[in-house]
């Protein structure tokens, strides 16, 4: 894409070729009214208010692309007339309830009505009764307020991927003939559609049964879609916005905590909701609704603090997880250096080992790409990630590519998923066996690799799977059939020859790829794949947690490096937890825990934690300043939304004379570790520009390391698991103790199974890992799971699930009646 120049209202602006006029204008700070368009989603042309004149023709700015030298006029008399009529139509029968409406003050209908200067109404039509409904545990839809801009349905389809809502029939009265004749054209068209529709769940029931991400509530320009918890609880203008970073997964989405006093009687601050720059970042349900996990403590508990100091003095091991900031990780590393303790962190350790081995093979310290690049590609492959559960943004990217870039996708995972195939027509799913991940990577090498670049050995190995087979296919041929027909009238018989189609078997020679069948691919994969590859030029590979927790992780990492090398693919990895990448880069982690264990947000002999059940309280992530490293390899800042009155890790460090004044004084000192920079916390930006460019923190340097000559080895079926298998995987919206604590997130700690599997199980079961380790779990049906593998969550740290699974993510288990 190249830079071109266009003129808007006579002034010249630079923009990118292929950009929509609206986005070009926005990027240059030119205002064009627009309601229904969402950046990163397809234009729906529902509102038609973005009408502009381009080179003398009226076009929709959200839908028309710029051309070199294009001259755009934002308003002409006719366009102004259309816009005014459109806003008047939106105001027809719109309830006069701004007074109570949650959106008042930030409502786009209010804003545009005033902006366009609607001070009188020319249109009218009898109203239709439209009911308030609750679509799910978090969604509240007030059809009366809905202006059917379809932003909610668009985001749900194009970004989230659920497509859980759609437009449905409103049952409104038909527009009159005069209206058609007398009204401006676009306003009429808009009204005509508006009068016919409202928004309904796509599954035909009353409930969306969706991912409950709440993104639809975020994009709704009016008060029609609001989270149930927020309804009528506060006016928008009363809330103070604290820019922060979501603490739950490695996407590290930029969010705003919006807070004010709890009530008249209670002046303590409370977070009322989380909002986001929905044009540029999409949250998941955990980020949007999991905000009230703060650790409320009365004050400094001196006694517990002394106990903690003693515990650290006698500790052999500090155990923690990656839902911590870089600064905390740094402090733990300093404690290790001072006290000589071991640092144990299961998720970061596995990830770090994988990364280390990968960089030895690839020659760079980090994977080469990020998810912004993935979103731009037109072919995505996901390996080893339960996309729906592991990382919502990876899934949004996978989906968005299908919808926006006419893309294709390959999804490799042992657990069947009902949602992923619906992302697009060109999505192929492989439900391979547990342990076959190496075969998957070989298949990718085989499908996408530049064979000439491959080591001979590997090339031969791949070739060994191919064989040319004779295959009988059915082919349609036209055959002439001659029959004798007796003419009834004349009694004469006549010979008639007709051409009729006939299926015949034909033998052809095809190249059969043994890897496909090993992985359980469909028979005609070759053909499908050919179609998928049409007009594709930008490929991405997403690597997930299954590969880090794998008996043959080392070989996998080398294969990944090899793929990146020979396939010309954007490679990204999903760090298992919020800041696993940061921790992996900062901490010197140990293999085995031993002796006296101090648990930092984890299970241990002495526990410090941000959940109520710890001996010494520490601040939760919405009460701390600090930074995270996101999966996009960016160091992003987060700010405290709520006050914390107790001790923090820095106080403990100060007892050992290695602390600093403030926790964030450690931020610039992170530069000690490769990739980090010496930048003060307060100098880290946290926002987006008008172009959608992420202006947050700084990007980690991808340092080249010495490339070692390593070779990949053949895969081995001996590690394939058979029988009853448990998979360590959280339900959607649950990631850690913090999401668990949030009152709007109610997915329980239970065994998640597919509907078919559920029929073979009791309501409560005992999952036996080995003789001594069993878990008693409730069985919960997730109707988006397919197959027999059962999912065991790990979000409750005191359940110590990581230790049970050890270095694997899959385990064979015995499920007994509970």
């Amino acid at each position, binding site marked *: 894409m190249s830079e071109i120049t266009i003129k808007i209202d006579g002034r010249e602006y630079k923009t990118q070729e292929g950009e929509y006029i609206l986005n070009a204008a926005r990027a240059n700070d030119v205002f064009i009214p627009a309601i229904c368009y969402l950046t990163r989603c397809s234009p729906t042309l529902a509102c038609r208010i973005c009408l502009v004149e381009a080179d003398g023709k009226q076009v929709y700015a959200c839908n028309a692309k710029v051309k070199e030298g294009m001259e755009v006029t934002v308003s002409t008399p006719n366009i102004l007339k259309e816009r005014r009529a459109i806003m008047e139509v939106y105001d027809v029968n719109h309830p006069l309830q*701004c*007074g*109570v409406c949650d959106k*008042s003050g930030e409502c786009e209908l209010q804003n545009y009505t005033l902006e366009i200067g609607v*001070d*009188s*109404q*020319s*249109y*009218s*039509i*009898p109203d239709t009764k439209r009911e*308030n409904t609750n679509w799910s545990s978090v969604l509240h839809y007030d059809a009366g307020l809905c202006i059917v801009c379809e932003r909610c349905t668009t985001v749900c389809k194009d970004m989230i991927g659920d497509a859980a809502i759609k437009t449905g029939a409103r049952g409104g009265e038909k527009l009159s003939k005069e209206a058609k004749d007398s009204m401006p054209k676009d306003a009429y068209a808009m009204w005509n559609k508006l009068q016919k529709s409202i928004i309904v769940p796509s599954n035909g029931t009353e409930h969306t049964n969706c991912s409950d991400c709440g993104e639809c509530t975020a994009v709704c320009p009016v008060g029609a879609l609001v989270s149930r918890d927020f*309804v*009528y*609880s*506060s*006016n928008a*203008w*009363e809330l103070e916005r604290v820019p922060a970073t979501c603490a739950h997964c490695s996407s590290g989405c930029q969010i705003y905590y919006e807070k004010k006093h709890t*009530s*008249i*009687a209670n002046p303590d601050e409370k977070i009322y909701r989380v909002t986001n720059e929905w044009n540029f970042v999409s949250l998941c349900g955990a980020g949007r609704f999991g905000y009230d996990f703060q650790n409320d403590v009365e004050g400094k508990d001196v006694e517990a603090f002394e106990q903690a100091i003693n515990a650290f003095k006698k500790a052999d091991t500090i155990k923690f997880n990656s839902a911590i900031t870089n600064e905390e990780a740094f402090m733990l590393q300093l404690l290790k250096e001072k006290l000589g303790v071991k640092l144990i962190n299961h998720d970061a350790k596995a990830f770090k080992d994988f990364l280390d081995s990968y960089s030895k093979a690839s020659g760079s310290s980090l994977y080469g790409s990020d998810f912004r690049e993935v979103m731009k590609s037109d072919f995505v492959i996901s390996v080893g990630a339960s996309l729906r559960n592991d990382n919502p943004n990876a899934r949004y990217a996978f989906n968005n590519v299908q919808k926006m870039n006419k893309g294709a996708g390959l999804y490799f995972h042992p657990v069947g998923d009902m949602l992923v195939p619906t992302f697009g027509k060109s999505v192929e799913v492989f439900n391979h066996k547990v342990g076959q991940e190496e075969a998957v990577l070989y298949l990718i090498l085989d499908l996408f690799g530049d064979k000439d670049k491959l080591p001979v050995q590997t090339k031969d190995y791949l070739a060994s799977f191919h064989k040319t087979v004779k295959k009988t296919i059915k082919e349609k041929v036209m055959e002439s059939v001659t029959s004798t027909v007796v003419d009834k009238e004349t009694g004469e018989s006549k010979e008639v020859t007709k051409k009729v189609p006939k299926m015949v078997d034909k033998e052809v020679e095809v190249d059969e790829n043994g890897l496909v069948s090993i992985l359980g691919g469909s028979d005609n994969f070759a053909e499908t794949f050919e179609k998928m590859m049409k007009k594709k030029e930008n490929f991405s590979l997403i690597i997930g947690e299954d590969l880090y927790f794998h008996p043959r992780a080392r070989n996998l990492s080398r294969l990944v490096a090899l793929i990146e090398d020979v396939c010309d693919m954007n490679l990204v990895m999903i760090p298992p937890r919020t800041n696993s990448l940061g921790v992996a880069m900062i901490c010197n982690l140990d293999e085995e825990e031993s002796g006296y264990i101090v648990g930092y947000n984890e299970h241990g002999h002495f526990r410090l934690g941000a959940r109520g059940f710890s001996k010494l309280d520490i601040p939760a992530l919405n009460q701390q300043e600090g930074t995270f490293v996101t999966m996009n390899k960016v160091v992003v800042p987060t700010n405290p939304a709520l006050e914390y009155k107790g001790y923090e890790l820095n106080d403990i460090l100060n007892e050992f004379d290695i602390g600093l004044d403030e926790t964030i004084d450690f931020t610039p000192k992170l530069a000690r570790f490769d990739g980090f920079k010496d930048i003060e916390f307060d100098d880290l930006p946290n926002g987006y520009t008008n172009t959608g460019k992420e202006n947050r923190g700084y990007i980690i340097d991808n340092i080249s390391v010495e490339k070692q000559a390593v070779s990949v080895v053949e895969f081995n079926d001996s590690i394939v698991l058979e029988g009853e298998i448990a998979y360590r995987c959280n339900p959607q919206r649950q990631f850690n103790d913090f999401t668990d604590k949030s009152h709007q997130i109610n997915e329980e700690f239970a065994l998640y199974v597919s509907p078919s599997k559920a029929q073979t199980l009791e309501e409560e079961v005992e999952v036996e890992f080995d003789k001594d380790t069993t878990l008693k779990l409730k069985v919960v049906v997730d109707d988006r799971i397919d197959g027999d593998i059962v999912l065991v969550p790990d979000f409750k740290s005191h359940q110590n699930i990581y230790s049970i699974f050890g270095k694997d993510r899959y385990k064979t288990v015995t499920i007994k009646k509970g």
Partner: protein
Amino acid sequence: MGLEKFKDRNVGIQQYKVVEHEAFPKSNAQKFARVMKRMVKGELFVGLWVTLRTMYQALFQDDMHTVKYPFEKLPISPRYRAIHEMLRLLESGHYRCIGCGLCEKICISDCIKIDTKYDENQRKEVTEYTINFGRCIFCGYCAEVCPELAIVHGGRYETSSQQRASFSIFEDMLTPIDALSSQKEYPGFGAVSPNADDNIKKTPLAY
């Protein structure tokens, strides 16, 4: 339409008298003339007469002006901005406040606080409403901005209190439900102007 009409809130009728002042004497001759005039007029005795007459009128003609304040109270002008009252709807008795928060927003001394919630009837319920009268400056903005004519200034002008800050809660200000029939529409600050109808454009209805 300009804003002048909206701003015309002059509900009282002005009845001021202008006192005529005698010109101050400038020359000595004028001064002398004034001294003479005053001597002849016996102004001192006029003064005595005035006070005596006043006393007579006060005592015997019922012209005593004292209002025995705590027992007797003078009616207060509707434009006076005294302690707020929250009115109810006359038909249903439900409080008028819809919890829109405009008064809270406009309040110049930031002394109004409102708690609201979503109630069983899918309405916005005002669970608590307070004004901190220790801070209120009785500017009347809240009454002016209220779209529901819900918050008004009442006639309770006795605002002294033993506490430095005195809060008033919803019940204190709300018309008691048994006094609903005697609730009066408020004519002062923020009331609908008498010519309100002329100032709005009608919205067409399709019924």
